């Protein structure tokens, strides 16, 4: 491996090189570069899966269970088959009968069928699929499929599901417990005995829908060559490739997955979905392309969603605010299937210890099957729940101890090179500086009008998850950089841009390393037949992991190129040469240089036209269990509470955060604002209302997302850090930013009007009820006084 940092940074100055300094020495990084795919997207010319049509294509629709729990007695498709225009119908009988899951080594975690054969387990579970000449016809055919169900009692709440005698969602899971996780260090019981003050609180974290602009959609085309090509809106073309191949009994190499521009993911397009499976099944039956696009309602009811969690927290502190011990007990609503829910269960336990130094810590989490839509990955993946509960409780602890919220956080804050016992090593960490920045911000806001309050919450998040999904021992990323004769560079990466800006980030890293411009790089993504395998877009991994792979591939290509230039410029060794802004030059004497384009031309023409190809990879081998790096931040939200209606208005938000070297400031701001929007929705309004397991508001009229006029002004307080593990010192700015908001808002509401809402969302109704209760309680002592005097 080449030491790709050699030309920029030496070992010694790496330690104190801050983001600001790094920014000065870069020609591409740190610049406000518009998204490389932005023009297509804003002009509507980007072609998403939902926009595509293929010659001879059919349209598919999926029949879903109306019951939350039922046995399938019989499926009769005759009437539907006779409908003119219907070309094929598939049911569970047409599958291999395998069960899908992401942990393929653990049979009981593979629990989801393509089409249910014996039992349906939630309202929306797929039972049959139809391909027809158009969508209307397919829809009509669904109504003609006769399914006889024996309706079974369902269980829709995890607490009920764990009771003895509760209906069994899956036979193998005793008391419906799907998975349990335990994390522990220190001596928790002993530490509580030494605490001056202990608080115990319960919280509830609600679910949330991903609400992607593009619903789940797939076109599958199986040819007479027995090979399958799939165009799909997803977060990892590689996962789709291997899981589809496995479920359909095809060789991985015979499944080609193409991911056109993707209209949002947020974790929702990480698990495979019924459009991918059913369109493939239908296409394999017909040897014609079949397209299935979920309706908005299906997207709501029949994909996956954020995991609802019941939290019990016990926190112990010394008088001075030093946190000695924390005990966390969590029960999560798993829904009908495992999905990637085991990871949420683990991460919520791990991140409940963030971003503080707990010497003693214990976590026990249970994921419980219920007859509801499955719960799985969603931006933050268990951490927003952890931070809402933890950051609410720490404010309560501070108040009990008579310490202000900033001080208690500062006293316990993680710092650089801190080890989370047995779990993780934190390298760069700018949390203390973030706390300072937010303290200043609060002072600057000055005294607030009545019913206004500012709440703060701190967070930390992983920068590249290391999870062994689908038999991969480690997460990995790879890239190829090809330099063409005219100096244009082709960058091949399996990284996935679902709108978060990964394409631009990776192009910038490639251009920076090669000393060329952003528009010299042509990006090739989203096709398993041309891109290196990659695990995709999750765990806030792209900037760090794919960034490192791209940087290494570019450095490899650069080294090959410089070998040709060295004959002309005659340095001592090739590392004494570099490229910046299209000039190949001596590092020691930048004024001596020649054109990059000339060097490329000579190098390729003089070598019988062989292109220059650089390869790069990254794996966090031996870099901890969870992530090779962590980002940190503190958010302050000012709210105004209408005490008549209980409505919480967002007035202003400031986020002090650090994500190592900032690759692209506009990309970062976009992520920050997007994350705030999503997390504020989680905190205040977004709610999947359910009755007997059925989602009652599967549409954007009644499932409310915040809109632009509801969003407050937002301020970014950038704190410089440098992450030695990241490309050019960069780390994530993706999911972490969704973590602090719910806690900050709940704390702000408390500071504004004195009511503490412990279950999400902080709806007007809950605030109003709490205000009334508070009123009653404040009246009571007076009454007593009157009575006794």
């Amino acid at each position: 491996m080449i030491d790709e940092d050699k030309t920029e940074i030496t070992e010694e100055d790496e330690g104190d090189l801050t983001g600001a300094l790094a920014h000065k020495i870069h020609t591409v990084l740190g610049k406000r570069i518009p998204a490389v795919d932005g023009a297509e997207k804003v002009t509507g010319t980007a072609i998403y899966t939902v926009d595509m049509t293929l010659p001879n294509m059919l349209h598919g629709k999926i029949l879903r269970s109306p019951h939350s729990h039922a046995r399938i007695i019989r499926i009769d498709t005759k009437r539907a088959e006779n409908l003119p225009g219907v070309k094929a119908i598939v049911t569970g009988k047409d599958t291999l009968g395998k069960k899908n899951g992401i942990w393929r080594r653990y049979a009981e975690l593979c629990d989801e069928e393509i089409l249910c054969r014996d039992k349906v387990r939630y309202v929306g579970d797929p039972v049959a699929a139809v391909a027809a000449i158009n969508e209307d016809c397919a829809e009509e055919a669904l109504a003609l499929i006769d399914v006889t169900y024996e309706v079974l009692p369902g269980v829709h709440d995890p607490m009920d599901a764990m009771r003895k005698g509760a209906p069994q969602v899956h036979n193998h899971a005793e008391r419906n417990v799907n998975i349990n996780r335990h994390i522990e260090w220190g001596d928790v019981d002993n530490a509580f005995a030494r605490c001056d003050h202990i608080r115990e609180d319960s919280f509830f974290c609600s679910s949330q829908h991903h609400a992607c602009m593009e619903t789940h959609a797939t076109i599958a085309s199986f040819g007479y060559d027995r090979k399958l090509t799939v165009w799909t809106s997803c977060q990892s073309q590689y996962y789709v490739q291997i899981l589809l191949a496995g479920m359909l009994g095809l060789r991985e190499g015979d499944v080609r997955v193409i991911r056109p521009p993707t209209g949002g993911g947020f974790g929702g397009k990480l698990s495979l979905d019924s459009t991918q499976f059913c369109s493939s099944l239908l296409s394999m039956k017909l040897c014609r392309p079949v397209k299935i696009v979920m309706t908005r309602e299906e997207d709501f009811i029949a994909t996956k969603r954020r995991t609802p969690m019941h939290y019990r927290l016990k926190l112990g502190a010394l008088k001075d605010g030093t946190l000695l011990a924390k005990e966390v007990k969590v029960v999560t609503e798993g829904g009908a299937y495992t999905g990637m829910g085991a990871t949420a269960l683990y991460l919520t336990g791990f991140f409940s210890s963030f971003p503080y130094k707990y010497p003693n810590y214990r976590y026990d989490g249970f994921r419980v099957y219920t007859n509801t839509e499955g719960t799985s990955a969603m931006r933050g993946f268990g951490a927003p729940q952890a931070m809402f509960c933890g950051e609410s409780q720490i404010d309560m602890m501070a108040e009990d101890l008579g310490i202000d919220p900033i001080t208690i956080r500062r006293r316990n804050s993680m710092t650089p090179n801190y080890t989370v016992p047995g779990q993780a090593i934190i390298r760069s960490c700018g949390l203390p500086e973030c706390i300072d920045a937010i303290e200043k911000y609060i002072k600057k806001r000055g005294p607030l009008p009545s019913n206004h309050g500012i709440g703060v919450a701190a967070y930390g998040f992983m920068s590249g998850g290391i999870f062994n999904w689908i038999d991969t021992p480690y997460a990995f990323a790879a890239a190829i950089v090809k330099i063409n004769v005219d100096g244009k560079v082709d960058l091949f990466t399996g990284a996935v841009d679902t709108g978060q800006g990964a394409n631009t980030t990776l192009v910038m890293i490639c251009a920076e390393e090669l000393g060329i411009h952003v528009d010299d790089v042509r990006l090739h993504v989203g096709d398993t037949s041309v891109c290196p395998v990659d695990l995709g877009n999750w765990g806030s991994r792209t900037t760090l992991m794919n960034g490192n792979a791209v940087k290494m591939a570019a450095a490899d290509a650069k080294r090959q190129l410089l070998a040709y230039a060295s004959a002309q410029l005659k340095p001592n060794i090739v590392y004494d040469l570099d490229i910046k802004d299209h000039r190949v030059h001596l590092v020691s004497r930048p004024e001596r240089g020649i054109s990059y384009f000339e060097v490329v031309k000579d190098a390729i023409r003089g070598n019988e036209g062989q292109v220059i190809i650089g390869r790069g990879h990254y794996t966090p081998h031996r870099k901890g269990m969870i992530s090779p790096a962590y980002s940190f931040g503190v958010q302050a939200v000012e709210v105004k509470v209408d005490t008549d209606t209980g409505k919480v208005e967002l007035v202003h938000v400031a986020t002090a955060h650090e994500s190592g070297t900032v690759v692209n400031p506009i990309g970062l701001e976009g992520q920050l604002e997007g994350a705030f929007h999503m997390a504020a929705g989680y905190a205040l309004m977004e709610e999947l209302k359910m009755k007997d397991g059925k989602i009652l508001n599967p549409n954007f009229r009644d499932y409310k997302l915040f809109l632009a006029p509801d969003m407050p002004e937002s301020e970014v307080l950038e704190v410089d850090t440098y992450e030695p593990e990241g490309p050019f010192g960069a780390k994530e700015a993706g999911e972490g930013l969704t973590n602090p908001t719910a806690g900050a808002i709940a704390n702000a509401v408390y500071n504004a009007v004195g009511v503490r809402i412990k279950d999400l969302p902080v709806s007007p109704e809950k605030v109003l009820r709490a205000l009334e209760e508070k009123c009653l309680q404040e009246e009571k002592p007076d009454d007593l006084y009157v009575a006794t005097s």
Partner: protein
Amino acid sequence: MHDFEYLRPETIEEAMRIYKNGGKEARLLAGGTELVNEMRFGKSRPEQVIDLKHIREMDFMELREDGLRLGALYRVRDAECSEPLRMSRFNVLSHAAGTLGSPQVRNKATIVGNVCRASPSADLIPPLIALGARAKIKGDGVEKVAAVQEMMLGPGKTILEPGEIVTELEIPNLPDYTGCSYCKLSPRKSLDLAVVGVAVMLQTDSNMSRCIDARIVLGAVGPTAIRARKAESLLRGRGLNEDMIEEAARTAVDESKPLDDVRGSAWYRKKMVEVAVRRTIANSLEQVRIGRR
């Protein structure tokens, strides 16, 4: 979506003829912001869609000495933006129009469409009732006038029979010292349906101390918009002070009939009726004050 025949009459007469022939299987299309959705989601499957948008004679707004006339094609966005309407005594319509949906929806939606759809949470029905609006209805050999309030039979149900078209709304002039306002409570600042929508018309004596007449209309808390008649009579002829307003608001709560649904519990909606009535009465008084100047 089902196939259907699309027809585009250019006069009221022609529309009536087509509608008569089409009968129950035909539907009228104005802005289409309701009808197209109903059709898309399979709630309506008309054989014929009669597009009214090309009937020029129905596209008008006329402010007169004796009141206001709104043609059936007058758009919600027109009402929101019309300077003469905003400056008039009927400016509650501009304000209420501005709370409906989004700019895109308002550009298409008509006020009459809002009335004919008869949604319990419609934003323009309460202010129209408060203003005493009447609809002119034409059908096969029928020509009648009905108060908007009398038109409403239930959620999505009006007195309109197949073949009948609302051609315009007429609103009588308001006496002096009258203020009218609308208050919509909803979770979001835009593009949202009312959890509660309240319109109040208030007429006072010349020094604003006594209430002469009052109309209080509650939206989204019953199958149709409801007149809070007890609350109204409580105010009528009484002095207007804070206690009085409070009492009227509390009385209105008892007259509301909200249900628990995904947009809010009945408990919360009742609470909000009180808040909204209180605020709307205050705003209406403010309108009187402004009018006095």
